[in-house]
Structures are given as C-alpha cells and as structure tokens.
C-alpha cells in the first residue's frame, strides 16, 4: 500500500544503556496494513515538534546547549523490528539522543501520539541465490541490521554472521552486553537471539569484545573463509567511514554488498532534494546525485562514491 501521513500511538519507549532507546510505534486500522510489510532499511519521518523536552535535570550535560533549539523539521528513523497482530502493527525504532529532536522523542510516553510519514525509501534486497549473509553494523546502525536479521529467518538455509562494532562499550545499543561476550561459537546478543545469527562484537577501544575496527574483523573473517565470493551478500549500516571500508573490502573481494546510508533530510519524500548521495554514472567516470530518501537509503555499495 502507498505511503502516507499517519498518526502512531507510542506503545513503549524504553531506555537502553546511556543514551539509546527503543520506541514502539503502534498503528491501527488502515495504517496497520500499510506498515505490516515494511522492509528492513525503510524509514519514517516523525514530527517531534510538538513533543516536550525532558525536565532540565534529565537532559544529559552535553546536550544542554542544543536542547532548547526550536525544531521545525521532521526527523527520519529506520526500523529495528516489527510486530504484526490482528488490526495492529507495531514498528520499533532504535535511536540515540543526540540533539533537540531525539531528546523530545525520549520524553514520549506510552499512549502519546505522533505524526508519522511513511513507510519511505527502499529496504535491503533479500539474499536470493546466496549461501552466506554477512551483517556489518556500527553504533546506531544496529537498528536496520537487527530488523534484517529477523527478516532473514525466512532463509533458514543461509548462514548468517553479524559483525557488531562501536567506539566503546557504551556506544553499543544492546542490552546486557557485558555477560554476552565470548560465549561458545561467538558472542551472544539478545537482540539477535532466535535469528540463528552468529555474532562477533568489537570495540575500537577494546572495552568489550575484540579490540579494533569491526571492518578488520570482517576482513579477517573473509580471509579465512572458504565460501565462494559470489555466494556471499554483505549488508552494512553505520558511520560513513565504516561503510566506505566495507564497500572497499567487498569490491576487492568481488562480493555483492548493500549499504544503508544516512543524510540530512528535510522531507523524506523527494521534495527538498537535500539528501543527495554521490553515485557513479555507469562506467563514464562521471558522478550523479541520487536521493537518499527515494533512491535509497539502501544502495548497492558499488555505485556509491565514498
């Protein structure tokens, strides 16, 4: 069904760790059907202008300066999970408080309502014809990748491995991280439980998991893996330098790779032309701008100019 403007009711808004939250947006009636088949990587634009800020003493020190800014634009968020019941669809969003809009979002309570435009953009393509799916995520890029891992349950014959990275333990948007590392056959994260996904955690500072960039672990894994390159699909979401490195590895190993990008967006529906992504124009050596909102946010890594 077509995208549109809808009202969602907050089902829950739960804090995870220092600055991460999971919010459940409930849709009922016609909008429940619209959102019932959202794909990992798709997103919504949420109007947070009418949500109130948390009380002064609940605003983290580093955000006090920007908290009071008067926001006017919606904010784009991709999904981390979906639950479909009869007449009700709940989409979950994993987010981090970084400024005046996400702070307002963190103050929403169950029963509150927000205006939502969506579902928008194109999600990840499924790994048809592949035997192995490698999922690479950095920080808040976890959302769409967790959503994807859940979707990939429909492909039981495919081996799934997630490479989970962040700067430090507190930048990992997962619950109960400390007691999950070093379990037999890789690390264990509750968010990936039941998805049949082997997980490897790394942090830049070594505060949890192995020390180093998540892309180093991906690279080492590929070097020792005997899987045919054409049977692998890499999916990645996270900071742009991480995505650039993943794309580089995929290209050098001749592996198909999809990346989910992030851009400043005013509208999310192709009106404002703000969210330009520089892409290769065929083999011409020239580049063109595609729009992250309509042409993405998921792109084939080989077409993006990083």
């Amino acid at each position, binding site marked *: 069904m077509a995208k*549109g*403007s809808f009202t969602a009711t907050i089902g829950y808004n739960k804090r995870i760790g220092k600055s991460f939250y999971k919010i459940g947006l409930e849709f009922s009636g016609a909008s429940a059907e619209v959102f019932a088949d959202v794909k990992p990587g798709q997103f919504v634009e949420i109007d947070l*202008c009418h949500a109130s800020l948390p009380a002064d003493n609940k605003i983290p020190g580093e955000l006090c300066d920007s908290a009071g*800014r008067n926001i006017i634009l919606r904010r784009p968020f991709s999904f981390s999970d979906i639950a479909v019941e009869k007449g009700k669809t709940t989409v979950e969003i994993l987010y981090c408080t970084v400024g005046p809009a996400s702070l307002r979002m963190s103050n929403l309570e169950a029963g509150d309502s927000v205006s939502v435009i969506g579902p928008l953009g194109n999600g990840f393509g499924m790994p048809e014809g592949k035997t192995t799916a490698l999922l690479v995520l950095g920080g808040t890029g976890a959302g769409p990748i967790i959503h994807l891992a859940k979707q990939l349950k429909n492909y039981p014959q495919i081996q799934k491995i997630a490479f989970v990275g962040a700067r430090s333990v507190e930048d990992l948007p997962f619950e109960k991280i400390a007691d999950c590392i070093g379990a037999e056959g890789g690390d264990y994260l509750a968010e990936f439980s039941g998805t049949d996904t082997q997980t490897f955690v790394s942090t830049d500072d070594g505060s949890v998991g192995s020390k180093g960039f998540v892309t180093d672990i991906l690279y080492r894994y590929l070097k020792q893996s005997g899987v045919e390159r054409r049977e692998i699909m890499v999916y990645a979401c996270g900071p742009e330098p991480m995505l650039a490195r993943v794309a580089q590895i995929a290209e050098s190993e001749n592996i198909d790779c999809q990346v989910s990008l992030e851009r*400043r967006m005013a*509208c999310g529906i192709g*009106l*404002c032309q703000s969210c*330009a992504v520089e892409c290769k124009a065929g083999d011409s050596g020239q580049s063109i701008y595609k729009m992250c909102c309509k042409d993405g946010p998921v792109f084939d890594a080989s077409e993006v100019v990083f």
Partner: protein
Amino acid sequence: MNNNVDMSVDFGGLKLAGPVFTASGTCGYADELGDFMDLGCLGGFITKSITVEPRKGNPTPRIVETDSGMLNAIGLANIGLDNFIEEKLPILGGMSCAVFVNIAGKSAEEYIEVARRLCGFEQIAGFELNISCPNVKKGGIAFGTDPVQVAEITKKVKKAGGGKKLMVKLSPNVTDISATARAAVEAGADALSLINTFMAMVIDIESGKPVLANRTGGLSGPAIKPIAVYMVNKVYNEVTKGTGVPILGSGGIRTGSDAVEFMMAGASAVAVGTASFIEPASCEKIAAGIEDYCSKKGIDSLKKLTGSLC
C-alpha cells in the same frame, strides 16, 4: 467547505481556482505530492528551477535546520530542459491548476532559451523568473539585486516567452526591494513573487567550518515570515497598488492565518514552501484555513482581502 466564499483569484489576467501555490523547489515536479493531498486544492503549481543543461546541484550537507527555520543550498539541481519537456511536462499537463515553470540560468541567453523552448506548450500558464537564488556562483541573485539588470532580463524573457505570463521572483537581499520590484513591473512583469530566501550561514563550532558544503545557504521557514509580510506590504504600497500587477506572497507560511496576513499586506495569492517539507498536505490545509477565515469574517471574495490592511 463553505460555498459562500469566492476563492477564485484574478492573477494578472489569469483566472485561478484558489489562492495557494506551491513554491518553486519545494514540491518537485508535482508527481511527489499526489500521495498526500488533493492537488485540486492548488491555485498554481511552480516547478523546480529549470536550466538549459541538467545540473547536479551542490555537495552535501545541503540543508541545516535553524531556530524556526532552515538553510538550504541545493544549487538548482534539476533534470535540464530536454528531460523536463520529455518526462515532466506530460505530468504537469494533467494538473487542473495554473502551472508556472521556474526559469534559472547563468546568463540572460540561458533564461531566454528556456522561455523560448517552453512558450509553445499549452499546459504552461507562465514562467517564474528566478533572479534571486542565493546558492549558485553565476546568475541567480546577481541578476536580481540590480534594478537595471532586473529590467533588462525581465524584458528579454517576456519577449521570448510569447504570450505566457511572466512572474518575477524577487530577492530580499537588497537595500530596497521596491526598487527591484518597480524595475520588473516597468519592464513588463505580469506578476511579482516575493520573497526568495535570505542569504545566511550556520557554523559548526567543533570543526570551525560552515555546516553547509556551499558555506552559505538561503534561510526559509517561519523565522522569515514577519520580514516577508513587511516586504510584501512595502512593495504593494510603493509599487503594485492600482497597477493590476498581483503579488504572490511567500516566506514562512505554515497556516491559513499566515496566508491571511500576506493577503492583507497586499498579496493576491500565496506560495507555500518549507511547510510542505514538514506537512506535505500544507497547501490544502492553508487553502481551507483562508476560506474558514473569510467565512467567519463575512468576506465573500478574496479580492476584498488583498491589501485590506488598515
């Protein structure tokens, strides 16, 4: 809907079904908005700026939000004249409202070329001359800040555009907007469109650099509304009143009451830009708001609202 308010507008000889336009560069080429509102609510649709050659536009970041506003520096990204004629004109032909094509260029010749090539298409009611874009190195605002150049390019494009209506979009980045307004009207403009965005800058104090890749951008949104209302009123009083040249008022309009302010100040119609990013059905809601206001106040025709400021 109230049936007791005549919402039609005589816009420089063009009969419009309603007073609300989409502002150029904020509503694509019309195909994007259909999912969100009945396009029949529009009095006019103004396309993105069209240039002779396709333009990639600026690198990102292209926008940054400010308190009650936003800066943009898109850089006139557009598909170019040939693609526009082939791909977008057929879509625009299906619209019931008046379609204005916004024209931009690096030289007078480029403006003339676009007008000349498009003047034969029936589905186009007129052109909006973009001589006020602050985000390109050549052309744009350079033409729009000097009354002599405004007059010259207005005359040339008017001539090249055959019988099409010519609306000139004015920049607020001038000492006296009445001077450029007067130059356009005396050179034959059928309508004035004001205002475009204000040149502005936001600095990232961590990096010590401007946030926008283009360094500067145009400020739009509610932040500029009171200045825009003032400028519309100034131009109405000093230039257009009594001449029959209508003003399309714009700058931060989000609600019906905002639009009523512009009309009281002297606008015959209004254009909605930034508000469509936040609420894609803004135009429809604003049109309904204007009608509601008139109905409550016993105003039976929009004509009576224009310039009614005491």
